[in-house]
């Protein structure tokens, strides 16, 4: 009887402990501090520039290793094609933030290290780069379009699951100052093995470092040490039919919705871009549903009209809603043949009578991906 009770007690203890073990979930977030931040849409192309805002929300000094990924076309003046692919060129740099420190930089200018930058004072609102400089941040090349990714690291340069960063991007149109702003997408860290293989939605076997989804993948080399939360299974976008009118601005207005998408899996060591085929399922206000798909390699920026399905455009919509426009809900997921997650942001361009205004938006997520995504950082970048 006593032995049986011991077994029951042990069994309950083991089961309960298993329930408490950290399990990667879909906690990609746009509103909490994280260990990896991704700004999917950066522009410095002479028409629009981008201001990066980044803060340390912890009470400790923190470091990050950051990557610009230039996705401009080989020849920006020509359309994309097999002979004119995106560059997918990566530039990396390091930053340091003291406790609770905010910082900013303009993507086209970067930020130098100059402790003699004068602070602002009464009557002087221009004090560029005043404050503790986070490090030497290079300017991007002309005609840059792409993304920025920052990974929290420790003093040695090894990735660290500290969840200390939050960030935003402000896109500024240079000719008239129109602005739009979105939150950087954060990927929460759980633990980290400290190497250059960052597993999102999975981990690495403690014994041999093999990427794993759970303890069962490790056999005798377990347990599976979870690293970062997973990319989401589904993205949900509320949007208008392409070029539908804004009912406030009137029937002569148009609204175009752009999506900027980057794969979750990226290999900075081999510099081979990841391709993901995305399935779109779209419902309109009448509950009619349509499907379309497209493939994203490295970085993609397109509006719903570019997907080639007329029903996603106002002109192709056979019946408008009673107010003369059409709203839609699109659910976007990766096709099973390309088992990689994606991250994305949206921007609406509202146009009327020759004037326009951009409005950026963070998108909604649902579910967690069944397969892990992997970000691979070259070994010499994390342990100089």
């Amino acid at each position, binding site marked *: 009887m006593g032995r049986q009770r011991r077994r029951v007690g042990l069994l309950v203890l083991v089961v309960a402990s298993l329930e408490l073990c950290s399990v990667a979930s879909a906690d990609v977030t746009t*509103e909490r501090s994280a260990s990896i931040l991704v700004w999917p849409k950066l522009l410095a192309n002479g028409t629009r520039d981008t201001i990066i805002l980044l803060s340390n*929300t912890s009470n400790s000094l923190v470091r990050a290793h950051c990557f610009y990924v230039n996705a401009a076309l080989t020849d920006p003046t020509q359309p994309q094609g097999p002979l004119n692919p995106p560059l997918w060129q990566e530039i990396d740099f390091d930053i340091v933030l003291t406790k609770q420190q905010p910082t900013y930089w303009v993507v086209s200018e970067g930020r130098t290290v100059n402790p003699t930058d004068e602070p602002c004072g009464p009557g002087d609102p221009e004090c560029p780069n*005043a404050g503790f400089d986070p490090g030497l941040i290079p300017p991007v090349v002309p005609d840059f379009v792409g993304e920025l990714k920052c990974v929290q690291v420790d003093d040695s340069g090894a990735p660290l699951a500290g969840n200390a960063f939050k960030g935003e991007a*402000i896109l500024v149109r240079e000719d008239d100052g129109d*602005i739009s702003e979105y939150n950087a997408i954060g990927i929460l860290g759980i633990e980290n093995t400290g190497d250059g293989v960052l597993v999102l939605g999975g981990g690495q076997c403690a014994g041999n470092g093999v990427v794993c989804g759970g303890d069962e993948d490790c056999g005798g080399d377990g347990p599976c040490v979870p690293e970062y939360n997973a990319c989401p299974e589904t993205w949900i976008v*509320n949007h208008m039919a392409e070029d539908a009118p804004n009912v406030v601005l009137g029937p002569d207005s148009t609204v175009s919705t752009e999506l900027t998408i980057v794969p979750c899996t990226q290999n900075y060591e081999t510099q081979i871009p990841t391709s993901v085929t995305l399935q779109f399922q779209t419902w309109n206000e009448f509950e009619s549903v349509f499907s379309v798909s497209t493939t994203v390699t490295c970085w993609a920026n397109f509006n719903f009209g570019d997907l080639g399905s007329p029903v996603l455009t106002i002109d192709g919509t056979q019946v408008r809603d009673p107010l003369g426009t059409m709203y839609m809900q699109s659910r976007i997921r990766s096709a099973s043949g390309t088992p990689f997650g994606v991250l994305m942001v949206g921007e609406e361009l509202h146009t009327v009578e020759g004037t326009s205004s951009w409005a950026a*938006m963070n998108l909604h997520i649902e579910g967690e991906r069944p397969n892990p995504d992997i970000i691979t950082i070259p070994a010499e970048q994390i342990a100089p």
Partner: protein
Amino acid sequence: MRTRKWVGWTMVLAAAVVALGAPAAQADVTSDKAAAILVWPKIRFVEGSVDTIIQVSNTSTDTQILHCFYINATSHCSVTERACDTITNPCAPSEGLCLPGWIETDFQVVLTPRQPIFWTVGDGLAGNQLPLDGVAFRGPRGESNAGTRIPPVSEPDYVGELKCVVVDGEGRAVARNVIKGEATIVEPAVSVEPLSVDKYNAVGIQAIEGDANGDNVLVLGGEANEYNGCANILIADHFFDFAANPVNGDTIESRLVLVPCSQDLLNQIPGGTTVQYLVFNEFEQRFSTSTPIQCYFERQISSIDTRNPERSIFSVYVSGTLSGQTRIRGVGQGLLGILRTSSGDGRVAAVNLHMQGDRELPDQIIIP
């Protein structure tokens, strides 16, 4: 005897582990996941000038019913009753005092499976404006938006918030995290002011068990396991007011919008609390201030702590650097909010605030 003690401790330890691992309300207020309660902290309508487009989508494959509340927070002059603001549009001495308002108007929205709908707060949505009105149009399985009647906001100069709760057929709040929403504030070009459109996500409060006891008191956080709690701290990254936009030199200003998590919509008692602000500049230098808020709070950040904005701790002239991080904490109640940044001649961008930590005490929304 030793065996019994060992067994006993094992069972106690196991029970403790199970208890500690039991799900509890977290600070999972979210602006990027579907939820059971949505809050749009800022609704703005000025007849002929500004309007707000509300988008809400049903992410589930079932019909959902929403019980929604407009909360009119427009202040009025006590004598003339025109709309006013104590700082930006004060009452003249002959007009009396600028008194805050808090009036709730509720309505119902029915969403069919996966359906997105929208309306402008200036016009509302009803009758033959509904996409599936149940008369001329129905969904594939016969469902419709019948039962939906969204009124226009009640004043030609209106500021306030909108809140929607997922309910069942009897009006009881249920634990279905199925709705997502956005607000688009549209300011058409007028005279020298340019077209400005800014957009933010509605803040979602996810349900655990919903209003399981049916008392119409929705408990956010705490041990009741009804809804997740509001965050302890909201965090905003921003440029200090009057900073020069580093791209084009335009003057930047920011407006902070806060609403309390706790509200008594049954007895029309607005929520209120003291708000503590910790402000860090790029030198890691810290300032702090506090202010009381009630019902609805919207202010240019350099007007939070002073009537002389250039001397504010939120002013670039005082802070000394262009960018800052502000941590916002409601002392007695949780808060929800957004930040709107303007640059130059009225170009505006909105962004949802970040959140951190759990509150010790729960908040409550009491619905009629």
